C-alpha cells in the first residue's frame, strides 16, 4: 500500500522474532485516519505483538512504520506517546495500590515547583476528561478496589490524558459486561467524533461488526487480509481467521437433570474489607445440568466461589455436596468431595507456572495411586496420564509434557486446566470464566467439553460475565445481583435483554429486594 498522510498508521513488512520463534512474518497494517480498525486473529496469532511494536515496547526485526505518512522509528513508549499513540494493554498496566489519578498521571505528572505533585490540578484534569468522554471513574479510589470495567476506563483515560490521537485497545472487552461493552463502543464512537483513530483487538466478532469500519486478519504471524467490515458476516470473518469454516452456535440437546448434587443454602460471605458480598444466597445444581450464574462483575461471584472452594470463610449458611456439608473446612476437603474448579485466574490459582505441564496435570491427584505410592511420585504414570490429556484436549505443542507451563499460550494453559479438572471425574464441576481471552475456536472447544460432561451426568456450575456464554450454554440461568440470586430461569424462557436488566438491578417478577 502507498504511504499516504490519509493514514494514521501504516506498518509495512513487520517481522518480529522471539528467540527462535517468528511471531510476526512481514505483516502489513494500514489504518485510515478517523476510523475504527479491528485486528482479528487466533490466540497467539501475533496481534498483541504487532501492537507492542507500534507502541515501542518491542523493536521489530524488520519493517517500517509510518505515522500520518511520515516514517518513524519508535524505539520506546516515550516516542510513541510523543507521536500521540496511546495503548490499553491486554493485561492491564495499572499499579494496584495507586489511586486512579496517580495511575493516570504517572510518567506525565502535573507538578508545582521542584517536582512536587499537584494532585489537585491532576484531579481537575482527570475530571475534565471524565466529563468530556463520559468515562465514569472515581479519581480517588485505589485501583485494587475498583471493578475491572472501571480499570478499563482508567486505562483509556491514561491514553487520553497523554493526548493520544491514535488509541490501541488490546482485547478491551474480554473482561467487560454486556452493558459495559455497549458503553465502551459508545465511548469509542465519541472518540472518533473527536477526530481520533482507534485500533481494537477483540475475539468477539459481534463487537467487530458493531464497532469497526475495517478489519485486518492475521493468522500465525502472517498477514491474511484487510476487509471492509460492513461487507462481511461473522462466519466469513471467523473462517478467514481460522483458515477453515467454524460453527459459531453452540449445539446441544435439552438437559436431563437428575437428583440434586450440589446445594447452597442461605450463604453469607464477607469480602476482603469485611462488607457483606454474598447475602442469603441459595441455589441448587442437579446432576446432568449446567447452572449458569449471570451477573455483572463485583456482585459477589468472587466471594461465592471462594467460599465454596473454602479459600475464605462463610459467615453463615451451608454448602452441601451430595448431602454433606463442606463449608468452612479447607480446599483439600472440597477436592476430596469431588468438586473440581476451573478458576478464573489460571496463572494465579490454576497453574504453577514453573512446574512442568505434567506436574501441573496432577496438581490435585499427586497423592493418589497410581501417580504416587508410599509417598513417592510415579513419574512414568504421571507422564503417560499427561500425554493422554494432551492428546485428548489437543494441547499444543504436543510434546510439552516436560516443559514448564509458563511456555504455553493462554489457550493451551486453559486446556490443561480443563482437562485436569475433568479427569478428576468430579460430581460437580465449577467453571469460572472458562473462556476468558480465548479465541473462537478455543471457546467452541470449551463449550463442547462442558456440554459433553453434562451429558455424562455431571453437575456443572458455570460462572461467567459474558451473558452470551450463559445464554447459550446454561440450562438454568441464575441472575446474581448484589450477592443474591434475584431470579432464576430455564434456558429459552427468557431473553437477553430481561436478564441484562436484572443484572443491572432492574425489577422483574417482583422478586427484587
Amino acid at each position, binding site marked *: 500500500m502507498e504511504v499516504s498522510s490519509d493514514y494514521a498508521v501504516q506498518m509495512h513488512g513487520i517481522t518480529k522474532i522471539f528467540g527462535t520463534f517468528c511471531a510476526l512474518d512481514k505483516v502489513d497494517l494500514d489504518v485510515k485516519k478517523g476510523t475504527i480498525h479491528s485486528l482479528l486473529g487466533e490466540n497467539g496469532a501475533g496481534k498483541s505483538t504487532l501492537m*507492542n511494536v507500534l507502541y515501542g*515496547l*518491542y523493536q521489530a526485526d524488520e519493517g517500517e512504520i509510518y505515522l500520518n505518512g511520515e516514517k518513524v522509528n519508535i524505539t520506546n513508549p*516515550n516516542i510513541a506517546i510523543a507521536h500521540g499513540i496511546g495503548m490499553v494493554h491486554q493485561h492491564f498496566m*495499572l*499499579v494496584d495500590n495507586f489511586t486512579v489519578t496517580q495511575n493516570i498521571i504517572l510518567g506525565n505528572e502535573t507538578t508545582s515547583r521542584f517536582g*512536587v*505533585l499537584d494532585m489537585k490540578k491532576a484531579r481537575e484534569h482527570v475530571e475534565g476528561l471524565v466529563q468530556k468522554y463520559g468515562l465514569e471513574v472515581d479519581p480517588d479510589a485505589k485501583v485494587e478496589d475498583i471493578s475491572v470495567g472501571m480499570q478499563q476506563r482508567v486505562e483509556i483515560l491514561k491514553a487520553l490524558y497523554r493526548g493520544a490521537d491514535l488509541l490501541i485497545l488490546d482485547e478491551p472487552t474480554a473482561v467487560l459486561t454486556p452493558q459495559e461493552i455497549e458503553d465502551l463502543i459508545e465511548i469509542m464512537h465519541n472518540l472518533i467524533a473527536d477526530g481520533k483513530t482507534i485500533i481494537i483487538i477483540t475475539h468477539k466478532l459481534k463487537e467487530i461488526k458493531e464497532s469497526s469500519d475495517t478489519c485486518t486478519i492475521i493468522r500465525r504471524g502472517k498477514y491474511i487480509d484487510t476487509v471492509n467490515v460492513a461487507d462481511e458476516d461473522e462466519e466469513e470473518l471467523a473462517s478467514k481467521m481460522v483458515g477453515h469454516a467454524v460453527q459459531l452456535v453452540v449445539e446441544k440437546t435439552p438437559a436431563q437433570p437428575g437428583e440434586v448434587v450440589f446445594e447452597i443454602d442461605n450463604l453469607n460471605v464477607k469480602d476482603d474489607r469485611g462488607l457483606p458480598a454474598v447475602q442469603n444466597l441459595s441455589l441448587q445444581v442437579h446432576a446432568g445440568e449446567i447452572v449458569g450464574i449471570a451477573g455483572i462483575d463485583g456482585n459477589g461471584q468472587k466471594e461465592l466461589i471462594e467460599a465454596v472452594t473454602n479459600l475464605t470463610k462463610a459467615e453463615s449458611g451451608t454448602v452441601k455436596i451430595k448431602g454433606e456439608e463442606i463449608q468452612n473446612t479447607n480446599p483439600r476437603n472440597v477436592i476430596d468431595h469431588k468438586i473440581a474448579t476451573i478458576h478464573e485466574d489460571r496463572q494465579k490459582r490454576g497453574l504453577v507456572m514453573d512446574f512442568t505441564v505434567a506436574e501441573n496435570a496432577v496438581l490435585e491427584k499427586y497423592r493418589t495411586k497410581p501417580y504416587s505410592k508410599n509417598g513417592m511420585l510415579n513419574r512414568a504414570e504421571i507422564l503417560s496420564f499427561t500425554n493422554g490429556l494432551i492428546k485428548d484436549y489437543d494441547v499444543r505443542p504436543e510434546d510439552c509434557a516436560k516443559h514448564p507451563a509458563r511456555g504455553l499460550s493462554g489457550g493451551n494453559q486453559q486446556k490443561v486446566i480443563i482437562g485436569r479438572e475433568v479427569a478428576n471425574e468430579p460430581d460437580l464441576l465449577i467453571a469460572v470464566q472458562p473462556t476468558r481471552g480465548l479465541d473462537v475456536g478455543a471457546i467452541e472447544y470449551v463449550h463442547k467439553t462442558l456440554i459433553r460432561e453434562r451429558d455424562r451426568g455431571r453437575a456443572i456450575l458455570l460462572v461467567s460475565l459474558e451473558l452470551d456464554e450463559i445464554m447459550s450454554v446454561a440450562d438454568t440461568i441464575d441472575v446474581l445481583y448484589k450477592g443474591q440470586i434475584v431470579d432464576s430461569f430455564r434456558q429459552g424462557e427468557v431473553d437477553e435483554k430481561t436478564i441484562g436488566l436484572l443484572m443491572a438491578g432492574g425489577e422483574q417478577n417482583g422478586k427484587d429486594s
Partner: protein
Amino acid sequence: MLNNISLLIGNTFMYSAPLIFGALGGVISERSGVVNLGIEGMMTVGAFVGTAVGYFTGNPWIGFLVAGLAGGLFALLHAVASITFKADQTISGIALNLIGPGLALFLCRMFFSGATMTQPVPHKLPKILGGAQSNTVAQNLNFDSTVILAFVAMLVMWFVLYRTKWGLRVRSVGEHPAAADTLGISVTRTRYVCVILSGVLAGFGGASMTLAVIQQFTPTAISGQGFIALAAVIFGKWTPQGAYGACLLFGFAQALAVFMGLVKVPIRSEILAMLPYILTIIVLILFVGRSVAPKSDGLPYEKGTR
C-alpha cells in the same frame, strides 16, 4: 528521673542513627524493586572511606560525603548485577557482603601502613550543642549531628516518595515495572538511581558509625548493623517512616538493656543482651504482623514478560 529518661533517649538515638541510614538505603532500593541484602557490605565500605578521608583531609564532613560516594559506587556493582544482568538479587547482595569488608580491610592496610584500623580522625562530626555539657540532661540530649541528619533524611525520603513525581515513579517501578515502562518511565534508570542512592545512604550509615559514634574505622565497627537495618526495612513495611521507627525501637531496646544493666536488674547479662532481639519479635507478633513487600521487589524486569 529526668536524667534517666534523657539517657534512654540519648542512647536510643545514638544507637539507631547508623541503622536508620542503612535502613533508608534498603527502603529506597526495595521500593524500586531491587532487594538489597548488601547493606552491611556497603556500610563497611562507607565506614572505612569516611574515616580515611576524614583523617587525611581533617574535615569530617568531607569524609562523610565521600563515604556516601564510595557507598554509591560500591552499590553500582549490585545495580549492574541485578538490573543490567538481571541477576539473582539475593546472591548479588550476599556477594557484596563478602567483598565489602574484605575490600575495606584491604584498602585500610594499603593506606594505614598495614593496619586494619585507621587512625582516629582529628575531628568528629559535631554535636548539636557543640562540646561536652556540664548539665547531665543536656549532655545526654547532645545528639550527634548524624541523628538530625538521619531524621531529615527520613523526612526527605518520605516527602520525595509520596509527594513528588519521582517518588510516584519509583513506587510504580517497584510495584509494576511494566506499567511504568509503558508510560515511558525508564525502569532501568530509576532502579539504577535508587540502588546507587541506597549505597550512598548505607555509606552515610557506615560513616556515621565511624565519624560520630566512634572516631575511627575498626574491623568490627560494622558488625551486623546492616542486617539489623535490613530487618528494620521489613519491620517498617518498606516505608521510610516505618523503617525509621523500627530502628528507633531497636535502639531503644538496646538502650533499655544497657539501662537495666546499670540499675542492676538481677538478670544475667547474656539474657539482657538478647532482650532487644526478643523484644523485636514480640512487637512484631503483637503489633506489626504481616508485611508485604513491593510487588516486584526482587524480580528483575524483562520487557514483555507477564
